[in-house]
């Protein structure tokens, strides 16, 4: 078959449905990944506006811009939106878009689940934003401690919206985690053995495993909270044998790994960018992978360090102090490997690389304040103060947002076929970098001076005014940086220079296809010849042939060596995952108000699931049950 015919056939087979119904039926990982990205950035914008409002309120002592009740809703929503609707989903969005490309396959595993995940996430986010607009947003902080969030102290439905938002976002995240694990383990291009998986893909894999083990705890915890509030269970009610600290354990058993769920993908982005912009393989691949995996494990042993002030037994706390310090080791190994990589190579200081350097500076500062917080006596002094606020913004913005923005500059050409403006990029970096430090560095000092977090104002005579005003000025600069970013994205979409397939001379397989990639990703699936797929490629690289072009076949390979095992037909576009997401969302929303939501939802839920999995037509199974292993051979081509 010649290439033209093949291309036409694949385009027809892997079509992205059009029209209104088609929009809801899409199962293509690039489309869903793009929507996920745009949606997550929209929530980032909302969370950023809320942050700016808080900074304006705190700019002067006894400011009257926001009242205490609205301020409570705003700081809760800021944390909730940033953590649950921006940080985790945006990293997953990158994974959904990039992992299938980087491992060299045509779509993500379980594409319909992917669609389902997106809509559940979207509906959950819209729900809580609407709640804010009608003055019913959660106001109990982003970790919603009981008893404050329990039925006695939070009447009304605000805390319930929070609890159900958790369920929405966790269901969405768990679905993607399973897809990514399966895609990475079973759908890699032939030749991409475990020790050749790109570091970014490793980071996505570690993130997915952390999601799988961390999120069930918070789903259970927030469901208990909802049940306590709705049907009078007593999980968190000490008067009836419950326990308030149980909530903190369940929440932080998820909440601490959550930080790494956000930050580990950031590490993957940094490795991808450094390799490309030094044109050298990352120093210490094995050490990097082992550090990622170690971070994944140790991340589960830290949760009590959020609870140092709760009066838990001293001896137990020392373990968590030790674990909190130990986790600095794998992070340190990675930092040193990156420094070594930059040292050996000849770094090209394009925008993505600037963001990486910004990341290293900010993240190291955040890591250092983290080590101080791991010490119990120190932690008790600064607990719930602005020092903590400064610390986690250094870690999260430094560790995740800077790499992310750098990553967007890096992969934008792949996703859109156009380059982002480099001049605006540099401006973007400096406004964000300076704005960030001016905003958050003074908060360390405010913390030492005793300013508690989550206060809506403060009296003039405590002397916090100057630092707060400085922080607010920094925040305005951050807003300006955000505006530059949005402007650059929009402008580059319309008028950016044409990128070509591989503008950076990239290392990994996404650069082997056109920009933006075709609906089937690769005309022929690639065969990987080395750890650095693009750089190890021979002049005429070997290709996979023999996948059907008239059905959505992908190649399934084995876990260790990525040797071809069988071909497998992925499902067609379908409206059912969307309908199922609607029913699921209606159920989650309904259960805020009545326990009858469950019995009412069961039947439609079953119907939509059956519709989803019902085979559409006789599948084109070939009658091959035993087959010879394929081997490389020479052919005309």
């Amino acid at each position, binding site marked *: 078959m010649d290439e033209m015919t093949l291309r036409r056939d694949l385009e027809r087979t892997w079509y992205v449905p059009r029209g209104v119904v088609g929009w809801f039926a899409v199962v293509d990982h690039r489309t869903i990944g793009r929507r996920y990205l745009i949606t997550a950035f929209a929530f980032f914008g909302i969370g950023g506006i809320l942050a700016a409002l808080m900074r304006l309120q705190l700019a002067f002592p006894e400011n009257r811009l926001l009242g205490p009740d609205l301020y409570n809703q705003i700081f809760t929503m800021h944390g909730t939106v940033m953590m649950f609707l921006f940080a985790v989903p945006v990293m997953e969005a990158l994974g959904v878009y990039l992992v299938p490309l980087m491992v060299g396959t045509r779509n993500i*595993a*379980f594409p319909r*689940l992917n669609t389902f995940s997106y809509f559940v996430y979207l509906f959950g986010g819209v729900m809580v934003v609407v709640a804010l607009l009608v003055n019913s947003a959660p106001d109990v902080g982003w970790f919603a401690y009981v008893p404050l969030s329990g039925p006695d102290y939070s009447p009304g439905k605000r805390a319930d919206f929070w609890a159900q938002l958790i369920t929405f976002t966790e269901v969405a995240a768990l679905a993607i985690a*399973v897809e990514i*694990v*399966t895609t990475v383990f*079973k*759908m890699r291009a*032939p030749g991409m053995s475990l020790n050749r998986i790109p570091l970014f893909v490793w980071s996505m894999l570690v993130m997915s495993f952390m999601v*799988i083990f961390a*999120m*069930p*705890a918070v*789903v*259970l915890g927030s469901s*208990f909270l909802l*049940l306590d509030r709705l*049907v*009078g*269970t*007593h*999980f968190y009610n*000490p008067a*009836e*044998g*419950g*326990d308030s600290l*149980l909530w903190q*354990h369940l929440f932080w058993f998820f909440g601490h790994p959550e930080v790494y769920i956000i930050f580990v993908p950031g590490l993957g982005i940094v490795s991808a960018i450094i390799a490309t912009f030094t044109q050298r393989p990352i120093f210490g691949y094995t050490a990097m992978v082992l550090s990622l995996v170690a971070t994944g494990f140790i991340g589960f042993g830290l949760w009590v360090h959020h609870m140092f002030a709760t009066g838990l037994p001293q001896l137990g706390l020392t373990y968590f102090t030790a674990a909190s310090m130990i986790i600095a080791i794998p992070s340190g190994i990675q930092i040193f490997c990156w420094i070594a990589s930059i040292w050996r190579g000849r770094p090209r200081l394009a925008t993505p690389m600037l963001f990486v350097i910004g990341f290293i500076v900010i993240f190291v500062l955040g890591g250092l304040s983290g080590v101080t917080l791991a010490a119990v006596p120190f932690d008790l002094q600064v607990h719930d103060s602005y020092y903590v606020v400064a610390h986690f913004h250094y870690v999260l913005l430094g560790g995740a947002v800077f790499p992310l923005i750098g990553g967007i500059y890096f992969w934008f050409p792949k996703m859109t076929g156009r380059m982002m403006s480099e001049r605006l990029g540099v401006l973007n970096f400096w406004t964000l970098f300076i704005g960030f430090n001016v905003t958050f560095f003074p908060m360390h000092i405010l913390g030492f001076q005793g300013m508690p977090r989550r206060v809506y104002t403060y009296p003039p005579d405590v002397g916090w005014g100057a630092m707060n005003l400085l922080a607010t000025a920094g925040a305005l600069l951050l807003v300006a940086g955000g505006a530059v970013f949005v402007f650059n994205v929009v402008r580059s979409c319309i008028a950016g220079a044409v990128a070509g397939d591989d503008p950076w001379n990239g290392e990994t397989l996404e650069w082997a296809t056109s920009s933006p990639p075709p609906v089937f990703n690769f005309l022929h699936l690639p*065969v990987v010849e080395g750890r650095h797929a693009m750089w190890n490629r021979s002049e*005429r690289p*070997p*290709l*996979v*042939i*023999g*996948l059907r072009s008239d059905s959505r*076949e992908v190649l*399934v390979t*084995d876990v260790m060596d990525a040797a071809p*095992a*069988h*071909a*497998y*037909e992925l499902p067609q576009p379908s409206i059912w995952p969307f309908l199922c997401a609607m029913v699921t969302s209606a159920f989650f929303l309904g259960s805020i108000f009545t326990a009858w939501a469950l019995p009412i939802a069961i039947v439609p839920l079953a119907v939509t699931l059956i519709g989803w999995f019902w*085979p559409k*037509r*006789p*599948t084109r*199974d*070939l009658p*091959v049950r035993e*087959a010879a292993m*394929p081997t*490389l*051979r*020479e*052919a*005309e*081509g």
Partner: protein
Amino acid sequence: MRERTVLDVSSLPRFAFGHKGLVWWGTTGFMVIEGSMFVMALIVYFYLRLKVDEWPPSLANPGITFATINLVLVLFSCIPNALAKKAAEAFKLGAVRLWLVVLTLIGVANLVLRALEYTQLNTKWDDNAYGSIVWVLLSLHTIHVATDVVDSGVLTALMFIGPVTDRRFVDVSENSLYWYFIVAWWIPIYLTIYWAPRWL
């Protein structure tokens, strides 16, 4: 035209059983997620136990009749379950149909017994924290049983009305795997709900 190295995969099979196939990975992924949830719920049970002196707190022990019958029934169901899995992996349609019907019926019987179990718990969810966690543990497991009964029912229907393809046999095999998962979890949950109050 020049020669070019290619890897021809056209003669490979179009499906695979077990961990070689994608369905297994999806099923296993969700089993791990749900398993983590069960582990957490069990931890919560024993955590709450530590908070009070008396267990169950000023309530009678749960009755064990229906629960124990149910335990015996689900353990017995492993036999038809193994036969269904084996038949599926040998593409024996007749045997698959037979054992799927048997399994679905056992599942329905499980649910009927489960409904009776609730009447023997001797607590309600809003009595105290003990009652809350007992109801949640039992309900979490019941949701799994119910899901698998529906799933098995649909698969049974598909195996009768067709189209019966190779991949349907893979689905039957993975459905059996999931049923083992549900059976395996019933043992610690049964011991916790019904025997922990007597032993602790």
